[in-house]
């Protein structure tokens, strides 16, 4: 699973006159593993098990730069003609000090969001339901899918990564200060 893509070598061409184009070194794969996620202690991680809504867990990603998350990708898609594609389901877990609902503003240009409560915690719906964000404990969970129904089903399946077989219906409330961005990393 994780690491399958890392075996792929990427040969790059730097076009003549590229000027500002950056290095032509092979791109490092961004894969993490489920075992890495189980051992992860920086903030609580949640996923939907080995399979959810008909799709298997196919990749675990880790990002720690201008973004900070561990991601669980379910289901595959086929990039074509040099264009990427959206996997059917993705669950990203961020530390609440880096991603929280208060980041979304109301100035011109801000994306509209619909605030709600999901599994007992503050949440927001974006993209007509194709994106859902929940704040629980010290974590913010962002669920991406191709429909509101699928995203809702994935949200119901969320549980802690680790040996806990099922999470209770209600998720832990956000740590004090998390929704208002008062937490520090």
């Amino acid at each position: 699973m994780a690491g399958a893509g890392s075996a792929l070598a990427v040969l790059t061409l730097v076009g003549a006159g590229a000027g500002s184009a950056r290095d032509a070194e092979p791109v490092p794969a961004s894969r993490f593993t489920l075992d890495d996620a189980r051992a992860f202690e920086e903030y609580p991680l949640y996923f939907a098990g080995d399979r959810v809504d008909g799709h298997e867990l196919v990749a675990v990603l880790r990002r720690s730069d201008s973004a900070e998350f561990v991601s669980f990708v379910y289901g595959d898609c086929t990039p074509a003609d040099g264009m990427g594609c959206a996997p059917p389901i993705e669950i990203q877990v961020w530390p609440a000090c880096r991603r929280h609902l208060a980041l979304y503003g109301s100035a011109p240009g801000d994306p509209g969001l619909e605030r709600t409560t999901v599994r007992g915690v503050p949440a927001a719906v974006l993209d007509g339901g194709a994106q859902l964000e929940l704040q629980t404990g010290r974590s913010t969970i962002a669920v991406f899918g191709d429909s509101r129904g699928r995203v809702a089903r994935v949200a119901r399946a969320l549980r802690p990564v680790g040996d806990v077989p099922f999470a209770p219906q209600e998720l832990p409330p956000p740590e004090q200060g998390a929704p208002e961005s008062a937490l520090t990393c």
Partner: protein
Amino acid sequence: MPRILLTLSFAASAVVVGAVPALAHFDSSDRYTHRSCPASGTNRIDPVNVVFTTWGTWGRAASQVEAHAGWTSSSGSLQSFVDHGACFGMHAQRASAIGSRFHVRVRGQHQDPALGWVAVAGAHHEDLVLFPIPCGHAVDSNGPGGSGFDQGRDELEQQLVAAGHVSSRMWWGNTQSFKQCDGDYAGSDGWTVFISLHQVNH
């Protein structure tokens, strides 16, 4: 009369994906490009990570990207953008080269009372993948320097700010990961840059 023609053109070319009336403001409710119309959650391709404002028509965006960033190639595949629930083809694209390169796709959007003329764009850095299977361009995966989407946005902002343009950033949270043809994944860090354009073209 021109306004009437513009309205007719808008209505005729739109592929409606939702019964949302066109309103006099910039709509950022869909923050991704799409493979084709109609737009859906399954045909998302890239995050929108740049918004040109003030005199941000698509033509000025293309002109000022060429002049200040030096991205003069117009090669690349076509993608679509959503505005007020309707899906439209892109207006322009500019790239720094034809191989490994910076690349941006642009679509002029609805004018906004506060932001002025607005065009949205998806910028990225991508590699031309030839081995083991030639598959075209793949956006750089997430890595220590940020993803290719972040690199493209940052490079464009840096070049235009160096030329005197004003920029700011807004959290859009459009961080969904996209599988690339080299098998790896890339996504935005969720920050969209707003760059003010001037009236004069180059």
